């Protein structure tokens, strides 16, 4: 009984502190300089990617090193669709996210069927390969000169995203929604299946779980989150450069997840 009470108290305290942090973050543009808002937006994007990565790495136990690549694919895909083809942000965003999901499924399918470290090596190489594409397909990505001329998201009704503040709030809102969805996912049946794979994938397979399919699912989920963060990044910072998405970023995301502590 006492434990239950304590848990309840702790839970309410957690909720309270989360609400306070969210208020501080949401009110940030009111009292902080634009540089601080810029850094906070970047931090939220990274937090989003790291949270998505934790589903793959922490819950499912598959170490991968290519979140930066998916982040970059999302960013460049949305930038190319909006600038070169004149799509609106709200059309380009779902297509870019779907594209990232497709790429991750194509890469993950051969790599995730194998145990051991194959997967880590493949993803490590993928990060480099994607960087090469960004660097060399100059007609498409601008290459080493960078990709310019990205517009902010189109307004929805009275809500305009021209100002940095509103776009920052869009990122904050996306972060909250994605975080809540990921929480829901890992506490659902699928989340338990992910955890069982990370603890013992042979045992999980022996009780009838299609481990390869679920590993692929968690890989695609983490990639989609990174891709979505990339789309937001492209339209917030409005300048893309290949070195932003070099493999160091992927390692940094691994470190972020590691420092935050991963599940199991």
């Amino acid at each position, binding site marked *: 009984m006492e434990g239950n009470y304590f848990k309840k108290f702790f839970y309410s305290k957690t909720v309270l502190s989360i609400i306070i942090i969210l208020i501080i973050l949401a009110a940030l543009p009111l009292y902080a300089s634009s540089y601080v808002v810029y850094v906070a937006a970047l931090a939220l994007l990274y937090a989003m990617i790291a949270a998505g990565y934790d589903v793959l790495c922490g819950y499912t136990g598959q170490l991968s090193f290519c979140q930066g690549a998916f982040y970059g694919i999302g960013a460049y895909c949305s930038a190319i669709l909006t600038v070169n083809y004149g799509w609106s942000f709200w059309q380009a965003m779902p297509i870019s996210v779907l594209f990232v999901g497709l790429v991750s499924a194509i*890469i993950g399918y051969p790599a995730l069927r194998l145990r051991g*470290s*194959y997967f*880590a090596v*493949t993803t*490590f*190489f993928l990060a*480099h390969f994607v960087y090469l594409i960004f660097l060399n397909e100059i007609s498409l990505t601008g290459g080493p000169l960078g990709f310019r001329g990205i517009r902010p998201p189109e307004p929805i009704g009275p809500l305009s995203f021209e100002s940095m503040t509103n776009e920052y709030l869009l990122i904050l809102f996306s972060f909250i929604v994605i975080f809540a969805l990921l929480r829901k996912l890992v506490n659902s049946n699928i989340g338990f299946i992910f955890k069982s794979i990370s603890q013992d994938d042979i045992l999980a397979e022996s009780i009838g779980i299609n481990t390869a399919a679920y590993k692929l699912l968690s890989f695609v989920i983490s990639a989609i989150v990174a891709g979505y963060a990339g789309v937001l990044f492209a339209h917030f910072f409005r300048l893309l450069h290949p070195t932003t998405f070099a493999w160091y970023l992927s390692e940094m995301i*691994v470190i972020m997840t590691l420092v935050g502590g991963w599940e199991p």
Partner: protein
Amino acid sequence: MDRSRREGAGWPMIDTTVLTQLLNGIILGLIYGLMAIGLTMIWSITDLPDFSQGGIYIISAYVAYWSIVLLNIPYFFAIPTGAVMGILLSVFFERIVYKPLRASGLSCLLAAIALFFLLENVAIALWTPKAKIMSVPETEVSLNLFGIVTTYHRIIILIISVLLFILVHLFIKYTKMGMAIRAVSEDKEIAGLMGINTDKIYVVTWALGGALTSVAAILISPLYAVWPGMGDLPLLKALVVVILGGFGSIIGALIGGLILGVIETFGAVYVSAAYQHGFAFIILLLTLSLRPRGLFGKR
């Protein structure tokens, strides 16, 4: 008849350019293969793709560069100097880092990648990011071999790496220690029960890996340059060679390395120079989907 003759006319003749590129590809492949031997042995024993070998590659190249420039050691003595550095680092990492983490494969892999980045940044801090030229005037003499234009240095790479392949193959195949290494890679617990000191085997394997990685780095650096980012691509490609050739297979490392080196060189010349480093990734994906155990893998 007429048609075939016309096709024949359009077909590129096997001229000396092709042969020169073939030689370059073989040399590149031998370097990848050398690095892959150590990686494949470490990987087959501990299930760890030892990314820290990429860092050892950088550091030993710099040590060789230093010993040439500062101490005026001839190039052929700089090779063993760098190799000793590689062995020391490799064994040090095995004892200090991997041994305590061996129970958890995931932590080992993370530690290996962290070491790779650490060494890369050590190189930046110690030697600045500027590329250095390791010049070996004695061997950089042009040579015309039946129309193939090359340098003595490439021939030296060819000879040294083939010799090393033969030596390592004999060592693994016929010496007692080599047999013990193979036994441990089959099953370390049973090998331990048979009276093999598995700890010693780990040290020997890592030392061999460090030595081969360093020799590969020092052999290739006069052709390119010595700079802190030099280890990234050879490491990735050696890992692809390991997967292509199959776990724990020396012949696989050699053949896989040659295949990758030749494909890369011809791809750069005839397909796209920008994606020279991308071909390895395509080979990796093809291997994983068509033949996951590699060309010569047992499992």
